[in-house]
């Protein structure tokens, strides 16, 4: 579990949803209207987190979808973008998936007949397949096809880029190296996954893991036919098990999906497969994306990162358009500052807290475009994640920073006159660069001179802040980053970013290298908790301990304002991906 997966966002468990949304709906938006402007307030915008818009069962038409860039991969084993996982559901079915209901993170069976429970506390999991399921070429899908799809993850030299949970929990001794180096005749040599017959899969995990079912709802739990596996070129035509299949694909330009005639509606309770055809146009500038949505040339922006500043201003000024065609949702994504505990003087907690007090979170929100882009955060868990509990243990007036307290902390740290450090940020994320320069100005007020170091996003996590040795050697004290978990649970949120036992020499996601016994113990307690009260207490203690350590400073609960065409149907929020549920969309009202 070494993935920072900034892209994967998550939301809320059904149990916690009602309360959480009520809380943030009333409290959250107030921050935006303090200036007393005559412009329409952000509050009161339609939000898909609590309802379904334009319900319809009508089939037909072409869904015209847009995206800023191509998916990292269309190979189910190599994709790690939330939006791409959401899109995968058009072509690939998984053992389990998320229920099609607004804001529901409930898992339901897809290829499997039911959502299993583990008989031994999370070490063994057994899934039975439905009958009548087929690939696009008509071959029946068997348990071996799913096992083969999972085995592909182990060929990390060829199949890489995807999450590695499967390897973390299924790796055997001696290590399995993937089907391409597999010497067994049927290439199904991974002993931790058994296929006693064509419709049964048994997983024997190396350690107990109660969230395993969430992993089985990720694209990795979809079948791949061994006969059609083309190794690292599988992305150019993954074999469909879902309602649509590849028709024409030009990388970075467009993808056309047409109906898969081998998919049988009677085996699928989840996909309604309303449009006849889906055309994804890729590689567009944000201005053009907004233009096309506004004019009705396109129905949806698949990245779901919201409209740009220009369109946002236009939409806020146009109440009709705003009410009928936009949504503003918390994305379940937390933007935070990582303060490296291994870089001097941040090895001293007081120096870290000085930063935590100095930062103006309202300024951070402004840097991203104001209240429709997010709201100031005081906890690590965003309000959309289960076991979120509101608290503010390092309070500053109006979240705008407290210079007096910050200077006191500096004195306590033995650096009363400040010091110099470096802020790292991704260069091709202009809003994150804005955040960095805003932070830089805040720190200057207490005498901390920070330089902003920009890195290409392709290297930022892998080669810059994800390698602790590099962080220490280069003295990267502060990292602008963000996180959304890979599946919607507090464990999914915290496990790889704050657990001191998961600091890795390469591909590290605990960027600040926080190793706090309270945090570590809280994670174990939360995972082991058998009732809601205990779990709530454990996760809140983790959250508070992290904030109190100053190693991570929560900045913004991210929001996105999305625009849709005037014909799209069934817009609803899926906490599994923290965006609209693509599989439900249609285009005939």
């Amino acid at each position: 579990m070494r993935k920072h997966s900034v892209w994967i966002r998550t939301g809320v468990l059904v149990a916690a949803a009602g309360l959480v949304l009520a809380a943030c709906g009333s409290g959250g938006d107030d921050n935006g209207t303090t200036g007393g402007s005559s412009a329409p307030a952000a509050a009161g915008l339609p939000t898909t987190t609590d309802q379904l818009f334009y319900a319809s069962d009508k089939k037909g038409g072409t869904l015209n979808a847009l995206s800023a860039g191509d998916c990292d991969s269309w190979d189910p084993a190599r994709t790690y973008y939330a939006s791409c996982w959401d899109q995968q559901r058009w072509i690939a079915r998984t053992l389990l998936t998320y229920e099609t209901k607004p804001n529901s993170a409930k898992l339901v069976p897809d290829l499997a007949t039911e959502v299993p429970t583990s008989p031994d506390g999370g070490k063994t999991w057994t899934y039975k397949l439905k009958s009548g399921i087929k690939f696009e070429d008509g071959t029946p899908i068997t348990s071996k096809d799913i096992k083969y799809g999972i085995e592909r993850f182990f060929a990390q030299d060829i199949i890489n880029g995807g999450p590695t949970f499967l390897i973390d929990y299924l790796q055997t001794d001696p290590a399995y190296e993937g089907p391409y180096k597999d010497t067994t005749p049927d290439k199904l040599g991974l002993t931790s996954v058994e296929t006693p017959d064509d419709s049964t899969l048994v997983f024997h995990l190396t350690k107990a893991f109660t969230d395993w079912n969430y992993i089985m709802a990720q694209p990795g739990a979809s079948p791949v036919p061994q006969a059609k596996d083309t190794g690292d070129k599988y992305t150019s035509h993954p074999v469909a098990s879902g309602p649509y299949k590849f028709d024409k694909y030009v990388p970075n330009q467009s993808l056309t999906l047409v109906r898969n005639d081998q998919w049988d509606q009677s085996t699928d309770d989840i996909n309604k497969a309303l449009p006849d055809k889906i055309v994804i146009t890729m590689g567009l500038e944000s201005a053009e994306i907004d233009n096309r949505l506004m004019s009705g040339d396109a129905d949806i922006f698949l990245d779901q990162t919201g409209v740009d500043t220009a369109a946002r201003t236009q939409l806020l000024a146009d109440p009709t358009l705003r009410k009928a065609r936009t949504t503003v949702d918390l994305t379940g994504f937390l933007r935070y500052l990582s303060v490296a505990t291994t870089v001097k003087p941040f090895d001293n907690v007081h120096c870290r807290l000085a930063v935590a007090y100095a930062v103006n979170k309202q300024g951070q929100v402004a840097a991203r475009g104001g209240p429709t882009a997010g709201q100031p955060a005081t906890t690590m868990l965003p309000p959309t994640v289960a076991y979120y509990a509101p608290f503010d243990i390092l309070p500053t007036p109006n979240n705008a920073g407290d210079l007096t307290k910050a200077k006191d902390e500096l004195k306590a740290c033995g650096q009363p006159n400040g010091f110099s450090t470096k802020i790292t940020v991704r260069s091709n994320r202009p809003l994150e660069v804005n955040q960095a320069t805003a932070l830089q100005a805040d720190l200057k007020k207490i005498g901390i001179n920070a330089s902003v170091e920009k890195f290409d996003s392709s290297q930022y996590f892998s080669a810059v802040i994800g390698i602790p040795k590099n962080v220490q050697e280069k003295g990267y004290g502060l990292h602008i980053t963000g996180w959304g978990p890979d599946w919607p649970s507090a464990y999914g949120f915290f496990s790889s970013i704050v657990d001191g036992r998961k600091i890795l020499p390469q591909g590290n996601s605990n960027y600040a290298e926080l190793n706090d016994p309270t945090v570590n113990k809280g994670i174990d307690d939360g995972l082991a908790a058998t009732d809601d009260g205990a779990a709530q207490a454990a996760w809140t203690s983790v959250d508070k301990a992290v904030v109190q350590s100053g190693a991570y400073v929560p900045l913004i609960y991210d929001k996105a304002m999305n625009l849709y065409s005037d014909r799209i149907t069934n817009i609803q929020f899926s906490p599994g991906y923290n965006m609209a549920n693509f599989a439900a969309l249609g285009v005939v009202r």
Partner: protein
Amino acid sequence: MAGFVIRRVLGGIVILWLISVITFLLFFLVPKVLGSNPAILFAGRSPSEAAVAGVTKKLGLDQPIVVQYWHFLAGIFTGRHFDAGPDKTWCPPPCFGYSFKNSEPVWQEITRALPVTISLALGAAVLFLLIGVGIGILSALRRGSVVDRAAMTVALGAVSLPVYFTGLVLLLLVSYQWRIFPNIHYVAFLDNPLLWARNLLPAWIVLAFLYSAMYARLTRASMLDVLGEDYIRTARAKGLPERTVVGKHALRSALTPVVTIFGLDLGSLLGGAVLTETTFGFRGLGKTSIEAISTGDLPTILGVTIFAAGFVVLANILVDVFYAVVDPRVRPT
């Protein structure tokens, strides 16, 4: 003459080869020397050791730099295999590298971007040649007149404007304020010639505005030089009609340097109008390489840069040959 052409072509090939060596070293050796591992850039967002090792093997990054370069160079002519054990990838000739980010040969990316760049460059070239040379000739013939002064003032202003600023102002006005050209994006000529032209027109105008100004200034200066030459004065003194003097004698010599520069400009524009493509969001060669730079897609940067340099070198050769045909005196160089 044939010898001259052959020497020039050989010279061009040597220059291209040097460029490929320098570019290759820059992208594959410099990061290594300065301590970063190019394999990490290929292996996904936070790669495991195994993933990095796999990519290293596949790209041949563990081999000596000379061997790596040889594979790259040979690949352009013979194609290339990227193999790691049983996993095979074939990059057919002309193999300008293989983009592991997009899982396709760089040549495919080049051929996809090329029509965009060619549309942009040729359309703009037609406009700025007609306008620029026309104004230049007119200005020279009416030297000192109101027309001349106005044209030269505008031209000087135009060459002082960054092309992206002009582009943004034009986009703001025609695309967003007046909505004459809404929704600008590249449409292939064969898909819809009208939309192709409509969407490219603002970018053509922006490029033509800059280049027309340069060509007007150049043509004017060159015309004035020629009109001051003795043989033109003689022709005039002999009482030849002005039309013959200008049309038959002056234009031919005056336009020679213009054609020279045009050849080079076109070569350079075909290599990718980086700023214009970026501002208008057209994914031509320029924008493709900018994106490749920002995602660290080394094979694509390398392939596109060498390909773009090829255009410039080719233009150089053509211009030299053209020069040699028109003016035999330059041949010995």
